[in-house]
């Protein structure tokens, strides 16, 4: 039953990657902004949750609820004050700004929290598992996967059922025409980054509960998140989930052959998808 187990673990791993990628996908889909500081923002979120947990002594899930509005406000301000100024026809300035932001965040966290490995304690939940006959699944990975699905369902509802979502889609398709219709792209972008930061907070919660984190750990997961977004197709959130699962399963299958193949197998799967469907699996926007 080792193959079944490998695939199940891969799907659960894909949920984690999708959760890391969802915020990235949202921002990338709406304003074509490649946020290189995404991983560091997740780590910052983890430190925020950790601080709330240790100051108030509450459950990490509750702490994440408190962290969400704070992160939303930070995201809104970040977009308003910094990123909106550099968005334009040239893609290089926002790339450089987020790259710089990534370095600033890492060193600010190092100053504030030192280089110690930290962890958001989740008690028994950390190691609990369900025995489902042929496979055993950890409760934490299952929760991660379920949260990824909930986040994507929620974001889809927001996109297709609310006026804000309509504004998101309109601005994504054509910002100039959208602003003729009375939508202010700057405001829409700020809302989008704020919402992306809420998703970042959820990713941060699971990052912090699964394993240790320190200020420099952010960029490492960024590459899988990017690949998940690209495989899934621009602007498609379900595509991002599919992309995460494809990379996760490819990695665990590769690792089952030999751990040396783990990372390579994920990248190969990414290239194969791009060869067959250069726009990704489910592209929503064409540009």
């Amino acid at each position, binding site marked *: 039953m080792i193959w079944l187990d490998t695939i199940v673990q891969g799907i659960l791993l894909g949920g984690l990657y999708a959760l890391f990628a969802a915020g990235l996908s949202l921002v990338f889909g709406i304003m074509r902004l490649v946020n290189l500081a995404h991983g560091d923002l997740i780590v910052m979120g983890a430190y925020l949750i950790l601080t709330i947990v240790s100051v108030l002594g509450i459950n990490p899930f509750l702490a994440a609820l408190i962290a969400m509005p704070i992160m939303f406000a930070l995201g809104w301000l970040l977009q308003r004050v910094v990123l909106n100024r550099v968005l334009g026809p040239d893609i290089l300035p926002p790339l450089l700004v987020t790259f710089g932001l990534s370095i600033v965040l890492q060193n600010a966290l190092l100053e504030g929290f030192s280089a110690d490995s930290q962890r958001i304690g989740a008690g028994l939940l950390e190691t609990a598992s369900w025995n489902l006959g042929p496979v055993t699944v950890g409760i934490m990975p299952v929760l991660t996967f379920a949260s990824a699905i909930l986040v994507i369902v929620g974001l889809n509802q927001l996109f297709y059922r609310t006026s804000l979502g309509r504004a998101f889609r309109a601005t994504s398709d054509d910002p100039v025409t959208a602003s003729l219709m009375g939508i202010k792209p700057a405001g829409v972008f700020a809302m989008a980054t704020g919402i992306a930061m809420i998703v970042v907070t959820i990713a941060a919660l699971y990052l912090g509960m699964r394993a240790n984190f320190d200020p420099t750990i952010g960029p490492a997961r960024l590459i899988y998140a990017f690949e998940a977004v690209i495989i899934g197709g621009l602007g498609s959130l379900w595509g991002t989930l599919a992309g995460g699962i494809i990379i996760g399963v490819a990695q665990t299958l590769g690792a*089952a052959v030999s751990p040396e193949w783990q990372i390579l197998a994920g990248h190969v799967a990414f290239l194969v998808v791009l060869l067959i469907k250069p726009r990704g699996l489910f592209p929503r926007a064409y540009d």
Partner: protein
Amino acid sequence: MISRRRLLKTAAATGFVTSTGGLAMPALAQGATIKIGYVSPQTGPLAGFAEADAFTIDMFNKVMAEQGVAVEVIVKDSQSNPNRAADVANELIVSDGINLMLVASTPETTNPVATVCEGEGMPVISTMAPWQPFFIGQQGNPGDPASWKPFDYAYHYFWGLEDVIAVFTNMWNQLDTNKQVGGLFPNDADGNAWGDPNVGVAPGFSAAGYTTSDPGRYQNLTDDFSAQINAFKAASCDIITGVVIPPDFTTFRNQAIQQGLSPKAITVAKAILFPQSVETLGEAGHNLSSEVWWSAQHPFTSSLTGESAMDLANGFTAATNRPWTQPIGFIHSLFEMAADVMKRAADPTNADDLVTAIRATSLETMVGKVAFDGANLPPFAAQNVCKTPLVGGQWRRKDDGTFDLVIVDNATAPAIPAAGKMEALA
């Protein structure tokens, strides 16, 4: 072998040094300030190794001022980056005009700095990296032992892989196991050195009767260890070992418990070096074992301050409000070495006099005796390397959630007292 060209070069260089030395003589009168360069990873992933820097240098400056020695320590941050470490080493030598270089904390810091110093003819004392990566890693062709050459200016003291093998197997021998060992070796400098099937730890383990099952190198910061867990289950491993970074170890440990892998011993290097990393594991950290290079219980005293290891650890905790960690003793000893060498050198501003003094070192330090006499070392490394004692320890969880490092095996260094017996994992 001295070639004609090298002879000419050396002659020219010595002539140059003597002539500038003569010119600069008045400025170097008695009491001239000796400059010590120190490269350390103060920021970045290795920053934990450098947390005692400021504490130690304060102590050093105070003692030197009391003894009336004019010395200035110039510290440069490597940012945990080997390229940056080489850059700042060059800066220290060329712009700051240092007389002696000190460097510590992992091959990523020691090797680039030592290589620069060797090239520039700057004496360097290095520590806190197993000697094989330090010595062999800096050779032109690490794969060909016949081509290995000793260094003229780079001197290093720490332990080696053979000591880790001895300590780990001694600890496991205290338990009743099936002698099947699972290895977690990542694809980085340490993982490749430890996991090498010919010169890594596996041949040493097998000499002690342990069979190693090594599924292969994995990438650091992996989020899934199911392949390794399945391989260790298939080999019914009672023991897990490896050289793992802290976040990966937490991921592995949790996933192993979720998947029902319950070994009798987990003995890993790196991941559980710092008490902060062990505390993040909670219950799952109890009775994890590791190699111990220094502890507050080590029976050594400082040649600078006369403090015992316990005094130093308590002083650090009092000054910084943080628990002691193993690097503190070694950083302290590095400055003991600097003070000792400066005092013994005929002219501490002369590189060759310093090297003569380093080679003649015989000093009881905070981490044991340092003497470059080649004891317990292969002949090729005898000139540049000195080994310090290594023992085995286990982390014991206390009721308040903090951990104590208890020395459970001292067969390799009986002078260091053992405070308990190896216990199997629950």
